[in-house]
């Protein structure tokens, strides 16, 4: 019942947000097309790299295409359904959580799903285009859907954990933004190139490892059930942590009126 209602809320939000933005048809289509091109552009640099060397630790052009497809795809899923997560810090700082607090829904879920990015659709479409370019089998198309969802859930969870810093410090959201962009920066490169220090980071606070590298290595290139279980477990852990941290932080929430007091 609860799960169904919450899913219903999320989809209703997405539908209304898209409906709102679809009023400006050209700009709506532009945003999506531009994002697809933007992602495609990234591949051009790899053409030049693979002119110099045949492969990078087993990653050829095809593997890079798939890896970056997963990156873009889960970024897209996260920003389509949970774009609000990336704005939590600002909302906390500006005291704008009030409306969500008066509604009978989980506040975090409500805030996260309240906003939708249109260009995210382009990211998701791009993911499937990438799979076509790479000549994926039917099984890859099937597997990529849960991979994108779990990746998005990890991404959003980590971002929320850092956004809750805004309850305590003024520029908490900037730290979260930094982590968020680091995830996209690291995610697009083959995992073999990274040294130990990076690897520790990539399986903790910048969890590209769980989001992209495990699915890449153990679902698309090979198969290992334990790594996949680990990925799901990490998703559950990080999302649970996000809910707990947010709930604790909420006690510090000071609504809009303290801000006016500060000025």
């Amino acid at each position, binding site marked *: 019942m609860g799960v169904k209602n919450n899913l219903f809320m999320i989809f209703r939000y997405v539908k209304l947000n898209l409906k709102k933005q679809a009023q400006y048809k050209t700009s709506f289509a532009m945003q999506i097309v531009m994002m697809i091109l*933007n992602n495609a*552009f990234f591949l051009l640099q790899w053409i*030049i790299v693979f002119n*110099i*060397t045949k492969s*990078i630790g087993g990653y050829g052009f095809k593997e890079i295409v798939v890896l970056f497809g997963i990156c873009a795809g889960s970024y897209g899923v996260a920003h389509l359904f949970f774009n609000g997560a990336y704005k939590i810090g600002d909302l906390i700082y500006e005291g704008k959580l009030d409306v969500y607090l008066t509604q009978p829904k989980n506040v975090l879920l409500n805030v996260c799903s309240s906003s939708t990015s249109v260009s995210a659709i382009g990211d998701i479409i791009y993911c499937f285009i990438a799979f076509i370019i790479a000549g994926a089998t039917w099984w890859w198309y099937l597997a990529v859907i849960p991979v994108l969802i779990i990746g998005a859930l990890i991404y959003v969870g980590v971002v929320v954990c850092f956004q809750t810093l805004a309850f305590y410090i003024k520029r908490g959201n900037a*730290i979260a*933004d*930094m982590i968020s962009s680091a995830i996209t920066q690291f995610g697009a490169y083959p995992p073999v190139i990274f040294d130990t220090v990076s690897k520790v980071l990539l399986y903790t606070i910048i969890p590209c490892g769980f989001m992209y590298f495990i699915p890449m290595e153990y679902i698309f290139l090979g198969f290992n059930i334990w790594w996949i279980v680990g990925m799901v477990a990490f998703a559950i852990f990080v999302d649970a942590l996000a809910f707990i941290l947010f709930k604790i932080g909420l006690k510090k929430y000071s609504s809009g009126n303290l801000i006016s007091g500060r000025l």
Partner: protein
Amino acid sequence: MMKWFNKYLSVFKTSFKQEKDTTLNIVFRAVSFLIMIYIFFQLWNYIYGQNGTSQIIKGYSLEQMIWYLIITELLYYTCRYGLIVKEISDEIKNGNIAYKLNKPYNYYLYQITSFMAKSCFSLIFLLPIAVIMEFGFVGIVPSFTWAQIFPCLLSVLLSTFLSWTIYSIIGLISFWIQDSTPFTWIFSKFVMLLGLFFPVEFFPNWLQPFIKYSPIYSIMSGPASLVANFSWKLFAQVAISQTVWAFVFILVGIGIYNLGKRRVTANGG
């Protein structure tokens, strides 16, 4: 002439002071800059390592490649080009530009000066980081001499200036077209692909002359190659092409601005 210079100097100073408020933003940008270099370092380290160390790819050693990338990334992080384009096109779209038309300065030159100040402020933070990374992590490239520091710095500043002259023109396109973002996007993508990621030597032979004579080379590859592989001859080439392009774009910019200005008064009634 002196008066004219003083006017824009004070624009520069004021913008520079105002930028102090955003210090924290720059710190965060510096972290992102560090991460990017760190990733590139590992990528190229791996590529060079795969084929046996101390090899040369297209005339670049690993050290030179990393020095090159540090400079192009530095230039990229110094110019938040999205900002100037958005500022100019917003001002044109919402009509605020009307208030600036009657001021005794040229709006186009004003914007370039003001954004140059922002870039210089960013450089104060980013340049030391870049220098530390070059000397501390990567090591000295064979061609390095202390004498190259001043010409290299000059070339970096000229590159930033050239970037602003071009991006401001893209912003001015808003006089005619509602949204100039796609133009920014296309141009910045070309800058990235043809300059940020690779030196000119990495591209197919037929493409190289086109890149070399384009402004993109003056913005990215030119100054970066200069730092990675310094020679006075190269400096002269790069500096001349930077100056020539900057003059060309300033003339074009002022021309476009004067044409666009008329459209404001037409809409103003």
